C-alpha cells in the first residue's frame, strides 16, 4: 500500500495531524505501535487546554494562542466535553507575589489577553477551596479542561471517516531511504510506501527518526505521578489551581485540576527517567503530590483518592516543542511536544500541513470532507430534551446503564466498540467511555462491560478480561 502521508504515532498529535490531513486530497495512513491508540504519553494526560504556558514569541506560544480560542467549536463538533474554567496561578509567599505581575504581563503578551493579577480575597472568591495562606494569584480566564482521551479518539474517528487508514499493532521496524527521502516504512504488519512521513511517535521519536535516517533526536521520558480524586470532592473545585513556582524552571509543578467527569487530578511530579518508559506508581512521589496539592487546596484528602497513575511526558532536547522538517531526510517531518500536546493540537496540525505543503505535498482542502462527529446521546439523552418528573421518551439504542459511577450506557459501550477506530479491549472501552474509571473502579460494571465486548467483538470472555489492566492484553493460556 502507498500513501501520500504516513503518520507514525497514534497519540494526540498523530491523531490530530491525521484528522487534518484526511480533510484534504492527500491519502493518509496512521501507524500506531501499540494495540490501541492513545497508549503512550497521551494516555496520562491531565486534560488541560492551556491559554498560556510558553514564552512570548515562541512557536509554541503562537500555536497555543491559535488553538485556545477554538476549543468551544472543536468540542461541539467532535462531541468532546470542554469547559473553560479558568486557572489561578497562586502565590504562596511574598516572594512569589512579586512574580505575579510579570507573569500576568507575559501571559497577556503570549496570547492570553484576559490574564490579570487578583488579590487574595478575589482569589478565594474565585476558588473557595483555595488555601488561606496565599498572597493572590494570576487569573488565566482562558484555561480550560477537556476530556483529552475522548479528544484523541475523536480526532482518529474523524480521520477514519475522511478515509484515513488507521493501523494499530503496527510498530515501525525499518525504512527504505534513498537519495535523502524515505520511500517506505516496514512495520510489524507489512510495508507501507509513503511520499511523506510525519514522525509523531512521542517517546519513540528518536527511534523512528533513526530508522528513517533522520537527525539524531534526544528524547527523555519525564515521569509524572498523579492522584485522581473522587468527584464527591472534585465537583467542589471550580478552577485549575497552579503554583507560581514548580520544583524546576521547566515544569509547572503539582497542580490541582478539575476534570470534565467531575473528578480532580493532582499532579504531576517531574522526574526525568532516561532509558525507559516506566509507568509504575511509587509511594514517595505520590506522597509528594498530596503534600504539594494540599499547600494549594488544604481540603485535599488522600482518603478520597480513587486512583493513582504514572505517565511519561516527552522531553525532546531542550525545547518543549519540536516541529520541523528533518534536515537530512527531506520528506520527513518531526512533531513532538512535552507538556501541552492537547493544548496546541489544533494549530499544530494546521502547521504540520503547512510544512508538508511547503515540502511539496499536494493536499487540497476538500469542501465535502466531514468536519464533525455525530453527537452521542449519553445516558441522559440529548441536551435540551424535556426532563419533567417521571417523563420518559423512547430513545434509540440500549440506554441501560452499565457503569453507574460514570453514567455510561450499553449504547455508549457499543459505539466505543464500533468502527475502524473502535476499541478491541476493555482498556480501550475505558479510555473511550470512562467505564470502569469511576469510584468503584469496575466492581459494578467490569463483568457487564466484558460481556458486551465479548458479544460485539466475538472474542472469548477470558481473553478480554485478561486485558483488564491498564496495560496490554495477555490471556492465560495464550499460546503457552
Amino acid at each position, binding site marked *: 500500500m502507498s500513501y501520500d502521508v504516513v503518520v507514525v504515532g497514534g497519540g494526540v498529535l498523530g491523531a490530530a495531524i491525521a484528522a487534518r490531513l484526511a480533510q484534504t486530497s492527500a491519502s493518509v495512513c496512521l501507524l500506531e505501535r501499540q494495540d490501541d491508540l492513545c497508549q503512550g504519553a497521551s494516555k496520562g494526560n491531565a486534560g488541560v487546554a492551556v491559554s498560556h504556558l510558553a514564552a512570548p514569541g515562541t512557536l509554541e506560544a503562537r500555536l497555543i494562542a491559535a488553538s485556545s480560542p477554538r476549543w468551544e467549536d472543536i468540542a461541539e463538533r467532535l462531541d468532546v466535553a470542554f469547559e473553560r474554567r479558568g486557572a489561578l496561578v497562586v502565590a504562596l509567599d511574598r516572594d512569589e507575589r512579586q512574580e505575579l505581575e510579570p507573569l500576568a504581563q507575559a501571559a497577556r503578551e503570549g496570547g492570553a489577553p484576559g490574564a490579570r493579577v487578583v488579590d487574595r480575597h478575589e482569589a478565594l472568591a474565585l476558588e473557595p477551596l483555595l488555601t488561606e495562606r496565599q498572597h493572590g494569584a494570576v487569573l488565566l480566564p482562558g484555561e480550560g479542561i477537556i476530556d483529552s482521551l475522548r479528544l484523541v479518539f475523536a480526532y482518529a474517528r474523524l480521520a477514519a471517516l475522511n478515509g484515513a487508514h488507521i493501523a494499530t499493532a503496527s510498530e515501525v521496524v525499518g525504512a527504505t531511504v534513498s537519495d535523502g527521502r524515505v520511500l517506505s516504512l516496514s512495520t510489524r504488519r507489512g510495508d507501507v510506501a509513503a511520499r511523506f512521513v510525519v514522525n509523531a511517535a512521542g517517546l519513540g521519536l528518536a527511534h523512528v527518526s533513526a530508522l528513517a535516517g533522520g537527525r539524531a533526536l534526544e528524547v527523555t521520558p519525564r515521569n509524572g505521578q498523579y492522584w485522581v480524586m473522587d468527584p464527591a470532592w472534585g465537583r467542589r473545585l471550580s478552577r485549575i489551581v497552579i503554583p507560581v513556582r514548580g520544583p524546576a524552571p521547566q515544569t509547572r509543578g503539582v497542580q490541582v485540576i478539575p476534570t470534565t467527569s467531575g473528578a480532580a487530578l493532582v499532579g504531576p511530579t517531574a522526574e526525568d527517567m532516561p532509558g525507559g518508559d516506566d509507568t509504575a506508581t511509587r*509511594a514517595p512521589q505520590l506522597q509528594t503530590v498530596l503534600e504539594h496539592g494540599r499547600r494549594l487546596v488544604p481540603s485535599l484528602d488522600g482518603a478520597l483518592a480513587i486512583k493513582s497513575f504514572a505517565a511519561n511526558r516527552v522531553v525532546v532536547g531542550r525545547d518543549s516543542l519540536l516541529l520541523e522538517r528533518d534536515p537530512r531526510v527531506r520528506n520527513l517531518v518531526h512533531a513532538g511536544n512535552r507538556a501541552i500536546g492537547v493544548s496546541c493540537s489544533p494549530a499544530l496540525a494546521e502547521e504540520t500541513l503547512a510544512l508538508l505543503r511547503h515540502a511539496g505535498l499536494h493536499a487540497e482542502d476538500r469542501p465535502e470532507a466531514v468536519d464533525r462527529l455525530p453527537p452521542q446521546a449519553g445516558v441522559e439523552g440529548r441536551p435540551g430534551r424535556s426532563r419533567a418528573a417521571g417523563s*420518559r421518551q423512547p430513545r434509540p439504542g440500549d440506554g441501560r446503564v452499565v457503569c453507574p459511577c460514570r453514567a455510561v450506557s450499553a449504547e455508549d459501550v457499543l459505539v466505543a466498540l464500533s468502527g475502524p477506530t473502535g476499541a478491541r479491549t476493555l482498556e480501550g472501552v475505558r479510555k473511550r467511555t470512562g467505564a470502569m474509571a469511576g469510584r468503584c473502579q469496575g466492581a459494578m460494571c467490569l463483568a457487564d462491560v466484558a460481556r458486551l465486548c465479548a458479544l460485539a467483538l466475538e472474542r472469548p470472555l477470558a481473553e478480554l478480561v485478561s486485558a483488564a489492566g491498564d496495560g496490554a492484553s495477555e490471556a492465560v493460556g495464550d499460546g503457552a
Partner: protein
Amino acid sequence: MAREVVIVGGGVRGLAAAVALAGEDAARVTLLERAPALGGVLAVEHPLVERLAAQAAHAGVRLLRETTALRYADGRVLAADGHGPLELDADALVMAGGSRPATAAELRLLGTRPAGVLPAPAAVALARDGVPLARRALVLGAGWWADAAAHTLAATGASVQRVALRGEGGSAHALELRGTPRVQALVLAHDTHVQTIECDTVVLAAGVRPLRCVEGAALGDEAGVCFLDRLDCGGPEGGGDGEQLSAERAAQYAAARARAALSRLAS
C-alpha cells in the same frame, strides 16, 4: 402531604426498608434496582427476598427493576433505565446499594498496572459463569468477597492462594504489583519480612466499602439521605457494629433505621 421516598438498591436491606416505610403515614415509596432481578447478593428465590418483595408489592411500593440511580440533588433523583432518563421527587433518599471490596487505590497498592488484576465482584460474576480467568490466582482479603472469589475461581480449575491483610485477621500489607503486561507477582510486607507471591491473577477482595455510585449521596453524610450501607466489617449483611449479620437481622436493622430516619425527617 405525601412524602416521596426513593430507595436505591433492591437487596435485603432496601426491600426491608421499603416494606417498613410503605406502612408509614403518607409515604410513597419507589425502589430502584439496577439488576433485572431483586435480591442483591441473595438469589431472587431466597425465601426472605421473596417474602419482602411480595410484601413490598402488596404495600404499594413501586418496584423499578433495571433502573439505575445516578444523581441526587435538590430533592430529586435522576435515574435511567433502558428507555431513557427518569426523574423522581425524593423528600428522602435511602441508600442500600450494597458493598464492595477496597480498590487498589484504597489499599494503596502501587507499582505497575498490569493485566490480570480484578475487583472481586467482577471476578465472582464471571467465574460463576465458568469463565477461566486464572491459572494461579491470588485472592487478596478475608471475608465474604474473598470467600466467594476463592470458591468460584477454584471451581473454574484455578489454583487459589489467599492472603489476609492487616485489619482482617492477617499480618500483611499489600505493597506493590509486579509484572507487565500481565501480573506476575504481588509483593506484601509483614512485620518482619517482605513476601513476594507469584500469580497470574490478583483478585482484590480485601476490606469492605459501601457501594455508592449516586452522585450527591456518596460521602455518607449528605443531608436528606439515610445510609443503610455503612459497614465496618463482615460481609454484605454487616450491620456496622462489628458483627456479620444474617439476612434476617440485616432486614430488621434496615427497617428500624429507615423508620427512624424518616421520622427524623418529618420532625
